[in-house]
């Protein structure tokens, strides 16, 4: 059955919703409810898309194509592959949870806020579905605009520096990518990602990679990360690390590795080294971070490094594990940032020295944070254990010492995550934790529990993603063929 209209709907429904919210003079409550309704509709459409997706069929599915400007071979071309399907799912689910969080805490200026959240949803889905380089670039940039305003208006005290750093860093990368796109597309005669030929140009590869490693981010391009994650409202930080960062990793897979096979192998060691550095350095910083969000922020850096290890291992197991870990870590970091937000609302701080002892009398908070934390540190049987194991096995096939570094870093993950759990939940009661601070309310539970349920489901059946991301028995062969 032809369900390709779903691909476009997933992009344009939230954008249309944003315009609607800006035009209609609705009350605060009605605005939030409408935005949430649209987010749920997105999840519904995605479920329908997943139901119609045929995993036994190679190539692009549910594609739609329309001329944008034919003279240069640029078109509106969208469609999904297995792995993009999962990332779209992560986006719509994550954005629904974060929009719900914004509704729950009652953000000021609701029409602007919810409109921008929907705009962000549409743009991010667009990144994962675009099959034309310029369209991809347009959505990649379009994500930045709502993020800039969301952090800049609703963020913390030092939001101005945070937004400037964030935007200038990411735009520096993406503008270089634009130059690379122009060069690649004009040489190839088309900007289409499916039809476009592979290129052997190392310069172009580096141009694309720069944008992706800044977005992901990888060491040493993560300068924007700590401030952006700390100053953003918690739900925006959740989106940033859970969803937006994945756009950079997705770009590596879909464009850098697929379209530039020779430069990929030429620079493989360099990228793997940067990824390993990000993994180790991020884990160490997370262990030293003095606050809740700092730990999650630096652990995101570490996880981006780990996923990049999987992608650039270039082996079957590496690719499978990377996609699984993208989704698993996305869910984990969204849950953690939302819980961080809940803690900060109750204590007005995220600093460990002022926190502690929150488990007593708050069973829901304690259970959820424990569950997510334990999944996050890759306890055997969890989704991220499956992901990390696949990645390490994949990179082991490349060279054993990469796996050794990775395995070492995973021990660090256990250290920083247990430190986080004990600093928030256990130890002596912190000075800011009062008895008046309630346990998680039903509204908050309704946002976080589904995410954790998703994680538990993936823990039970990681093959749901890892065996359903690439066509055929060998992901590496699928990547090599350009997903034809």
């Amino acid at each position: 059955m032809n369900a390709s209209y779903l691909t476009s709907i997933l992009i344009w429904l939230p954008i249309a919703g944003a315009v609607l919210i800006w035009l209609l003079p609705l009350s605060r409550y009605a605005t939030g409810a409408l935005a949430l309704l649209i987010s749920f509709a997105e999840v519904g459409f995605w479920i329908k898309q997943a139901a119609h997706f045929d995993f036994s069929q190679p190539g692009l599915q549910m594609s739609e194509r329309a001329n944008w400007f034919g003279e240069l071979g640029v078109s509106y071309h969208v469609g999904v592959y297995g792995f993009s399907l999962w990332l779209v799912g992560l986006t719509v689910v994550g954005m629904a949870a974060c929009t719900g969080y914004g509704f729950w805490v009652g953000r000021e200026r609701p029409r602007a806020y919810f409109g921008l959240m929907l705009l962000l949803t549409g743009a991010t889905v667009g990144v994962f579905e675009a099959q034309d380089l310029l369209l991809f670039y347009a959505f990649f940039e379009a994500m930045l605009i709502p993020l800039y305003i969301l952090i800049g208006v609703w963020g913390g005290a030092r939001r101005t520096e945070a937004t400037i750093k964030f935007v200038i860093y990411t735009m520096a990368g993406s503008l270089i990518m634009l130059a690379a796109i122009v060069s690649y597309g004009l040489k190839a005669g088309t900007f289409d990602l499916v039809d476009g030929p592979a290129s052997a140009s190392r310069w172009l590869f580096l141009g694309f990679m720069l944008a992706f490693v800044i977005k992901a981010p990888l060491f040493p391009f993560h300068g924007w990360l700590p401030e952006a994650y700390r100053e953003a409202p918690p739900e925006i930080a959740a989106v940033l690390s859970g969803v937006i960062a994945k756009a950079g990793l997705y770009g590596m897979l879909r464009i850098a590795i697929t379209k530039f096979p020779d430069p990929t192998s030429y620079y493989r060691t360099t990228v793997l080294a940067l990824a390993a550095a990000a993994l180790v350095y991020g884990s160490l910083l997370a262990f030293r971070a003095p606050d809740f969000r700092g730990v999650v922020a630096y652990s995101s850096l570490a996880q981006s490094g780990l996923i990049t290890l999987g992608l650039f291992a270039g082996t079957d197991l590496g690719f499978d594990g990377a996609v699984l870990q993208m989704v698993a870590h996305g869910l984990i970091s969204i849950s953690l940032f939302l819980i961080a937000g809940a803690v900060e609302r109750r204590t007005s701080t995220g600093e460990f020295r002022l926190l502690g002892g929150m488990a007593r009398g708050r069973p829901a908070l304690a259970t959820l944070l424990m569950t997510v934390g334990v999944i996050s540190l890759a306890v055997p049987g969890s989704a991220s254990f499956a992901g990390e194991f696949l990645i390490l096995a994949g990179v082991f096939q490349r060279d054993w010492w990469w796996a050794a570094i990775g395995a070492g870093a995973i021990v660090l993950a256990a250290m920083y995550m247990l430190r986080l759990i004990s600093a928030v939940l256990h130890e002596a009661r912190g000075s800011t934790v009062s008895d008046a601070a309630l346990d998680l309310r039903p509204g908050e539970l309704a946002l976080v529990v589904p995410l954790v349920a998703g994680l538990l489901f993936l823990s039970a059946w990681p093959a749901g993603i890892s065996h359903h991301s690439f066509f055929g028995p060998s992901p590496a062969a699928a990547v090599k063929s350009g997903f034809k």
Partner: protein
Amino acid sequence: MTLNTPYIDWFGLSPVLTLIGTAFAALLCAVLVPRAVRRIAAASISAIGFTAGIVLAVWLYVDSASGHTIAAGAYYRDRWTSLGQVIIFAVGLGTTLLAVEHVPGWGREADRARRDDHVAEFFALLLASAAGMAFFVGSANLITLFLSLEWFSIALYVMCAIDYDLEGALEAGLKYLVVGSFGAATLLFGSALVYGATGTVSFGGIASAISSQGLTGDTFVVVGIALMVAGLGFKMSAAPFHMWTPDVYEGAPTTVTAWMSSATKVAALLLTFRVMTTAFPDNQHLWGWAFAIIATISLAIGNFAALVQNNVKRILAYSAIAQAGFMLIGLSTGSALGGRALMYYLIPYAASAFGTFAIVAARERELGVPVTLDNLAGFGWERPFLGVAMWFFVFGFAGLPLTGGFVGKFYVFAAAYDAGWAWLVIVGVLATLVSLYYYLGIVRAMYMRGPEELQLQPGGVAVSGGAPAKETLLQLAVGAALVVAVGSLFAVEPLITLARHAVSSLPV
């Protein structure tokens, strides 16, 4: 004795003639129409003139598939002319809407007895300058080129200074007059040298003379081209010929700035592309490099100077210089692709430049003081529509995919890359990065500081309490500009087709 008058294709000249006619009619309003209805009468005439001009220009576009010169080789009747005229007249129509509520002096506190003093002359000058620009884009020889340049420039000099109560307006007018005359003189001197070397004034004739007599390296031709490039550079406010731009844009009434920053640039860039490709195709290696370097300097000076400004009109003036740099990238390639890129870029650019100044005008009328980044505080929340329009425009300038500015940049880069100038792409990319800082700064000023942070300079007359005035016509103009700017992002193919037809009438 019989006088042989050439055959005149009146229909081909009709857009220009219509505007001249309505300019006279508007001028008559100043003496014939009672003061009470003078403003609305003159504005109506102006709106009718621009609408009729657009209709005729569109008609001529359809009807002029094969471009040729008319009026004894003085004027091109082709699609390049017509499309340029449509853009100019559309901006003119927007400026008319903006000017209806324009009052001399600062805002609505101005002296009521004098607020309608020069309103009819204002519209007459607007129409006259538009007529001059319309003739300028179609001019086919050095005489009509210079004539029409002076024609619209003189109208603009007066428009800059028309609010003589306004601090800085007279200075702006005088500065523009002096620098503009210097530019015009440079152009004239260059034209004279080219005429001296080739013995002809028509663009086509110059090209054939240069190629048949082997004058490509001729000193007079080369110096002539250099002087013409400089003279035209003044009009398009490209660096290093930009010194007047920030002061004039800041000092002139904002309505006039909106008109100058978009329409003048359209006319100057389109004419320059025509003159260079038609008259000097064999010297492309010279003027191509010249414009590539001018583009680089404009991008550098425009963007870096904008970083340190606080007055929004000055920021936008430097941004206009930088935007000229981007368009010059397309121009400098001298290729058909470059021409299309230039023509396409001008559409969202003209809409956005007009729109941003219109929004500044709205804030200015509200506060009664020059608009700085500081007193934009809270603007985005108070006037949501204008705020959203502003961030669309400035993000579009920055090349983010909200308006056609995104595709325009891409097209210009593609043209440069196609011409083998990859370094120019890199320059453009770096310039865009720098420009982000001040474009984001405008958005930050509007949204990220509450109205309680609003600081007015002494003498400000902020509207105390109550909703700001509903300037319906201004909002309508901004809305139209927004539709054009955003629409051009989606309707790339149709616009490029129009541009392709327009370029096909040029010898590229």
